[in-house]
């Protein structure tokens, strides 16, 4: 039991150290998020009311795209340098080891999106409670994006053009998170409570936490044997 905790923690620490050494990877994802959100006003015009009503959708779709961008490297670096093989051979259950990697991925790419979202929300004229709801929804939703996205990353491991393929495989599966996340902010905007959306999002997170690690572990075994 103790060995398991050590292994999980070591893997998490290793991924975080690697990310700190190569900061640009995480920063590029964050920069992409900011740039995409900033392009929308240029495309649809600066009308504050229009921007405000579009804001939840714009922020969520941009968050989905930014997450997609980071997924390709989730397993591919480890696959190339052989450390994925070591993880597969380790006596610890693969589905738990995978959770460690996904937690690291979320800390590196998901959490920064949550933290910078208030700034972008203000740019798009959201007010205080709406921004808080947006953050709560992103906080619950970005782990879902990492978990489901990891299935796609594992299934396209070692394939040519894997990055483009991931988006075709995974974006349809992101629909529930998008609907609930943007819906939560919409609900607050139209004067009702976001509680239902956030509860359902939390339920979805729990369901994904339960099922995704098995699928990821199975996909990794298939694609790396």
């Amino acid at each position, binding site marked *: 039991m103790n060995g398991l905790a050590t292994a999980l923690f070591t893997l998490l620490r290793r991924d975080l150290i690697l990310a700190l050494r190569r900061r640009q990877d995480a920063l590029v994802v964050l920069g992409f998020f900011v740039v995409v959100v900033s392009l929308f006003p240029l495309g649809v015009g600066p009308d504050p009311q229009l921007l405000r009503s579009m804001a939840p959708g714009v922020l969520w779709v941009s968050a989905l795209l930014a997450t997609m961008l980071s997924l390709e490297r989730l397993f591919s670096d480890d696959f190339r340098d052989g450390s994925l093989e070591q993880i597969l051979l380790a006596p610890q259950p693969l589905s738990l080891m995978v959770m460690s990697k996904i937690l690291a991925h979320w800390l590196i790419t998901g959490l920064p999106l949550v933290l910078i979202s208030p700034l972008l929300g203000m740019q798009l004229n959201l007010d205080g409670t709406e921004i808080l709801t947006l953050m709560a929804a992103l906080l619950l939703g970005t782990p879902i994006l990492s978990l489901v996205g990891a*299935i796609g990353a594992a*299934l396209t491991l070692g394939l040519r*053009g894997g990055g483009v393929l991931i988006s*075709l495989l995974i974006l*349809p599966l992101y*629909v529930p998170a998008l*609907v609930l996340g943007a819906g939560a902010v919409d609900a607050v905007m139209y004067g009702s409570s976001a509680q239902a959306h956030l509860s359902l999002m939390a339920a*979805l997170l729990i369901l994904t936490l339960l099922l995704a690690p098995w699928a990821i572990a199975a996909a990794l075994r298939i694609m790396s044997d």
Partner: protein
Amino acid sequence: MAEQRVQWFKFASPPNFYDLAGRLAPWFGGLAAILFVVGLYVGFVLAPPDYQQGNSYRIMFIHVPTAWMSMFLYVLMAVYAAIGLIWRVKTAEVMAKAIAPTGALFTFLALWTGALWGKPTWGTYWVWDARLTSELILLFLYLGYMALHAAIEDRQRAANASAILALAGVVNVPIIYFSVVWWNTLHQGASITVTSAPTMETVMFSALMLMTFACWMYAIAVVLWRARLELLERERRAAWVLERMGEKA
């Protein structure tokens, strides 16, 4: 009881499946052709015009069966994929792969006929109605499955990987459907309901049933044919393939 089981497993072996599918597929194909002709005759000639929609409702006889098939086939594909993944049944893997293009075709037809039906009834080709939207996402799921299958060169690995994708998709389909329904009611208020159709006449109902069976027969015939070809390609070095190909050459 035990004997019956042996009978079933017999057809899971590629050569037996190949022979059986070859014998059955033409029958299903012929049945599909007859049912299509009869169904279209009943639907387009015998059935009276609708008192509200006139003649435009007749596209329902194509639209509704294809929409049903698109959903059934996805579930069926996931079931075959699961059987292939869990029990390593090669014919099940082949069947899952063979179903995908037919399912995508039906999904596309359902969307296309839905758009054509929408123009005269709702005045627009496309509305972001919950059913249309989830059907569109279903099409993306089919395309993703086929793209992943095509991207992996090793056939065994392709079958296993896309089986996982099909299973992830089938878990998600109800969640997607309900989230889209909810999204729709939230954004559009009361939207067009396709469900509250007036009670159907017997002629219309029988045309619909005939067309549904025709679609089933067509799907079975085409899937069996495609599965046979896929088996030949996968097993091209196996003795049974050489034996059968040698006979024909």
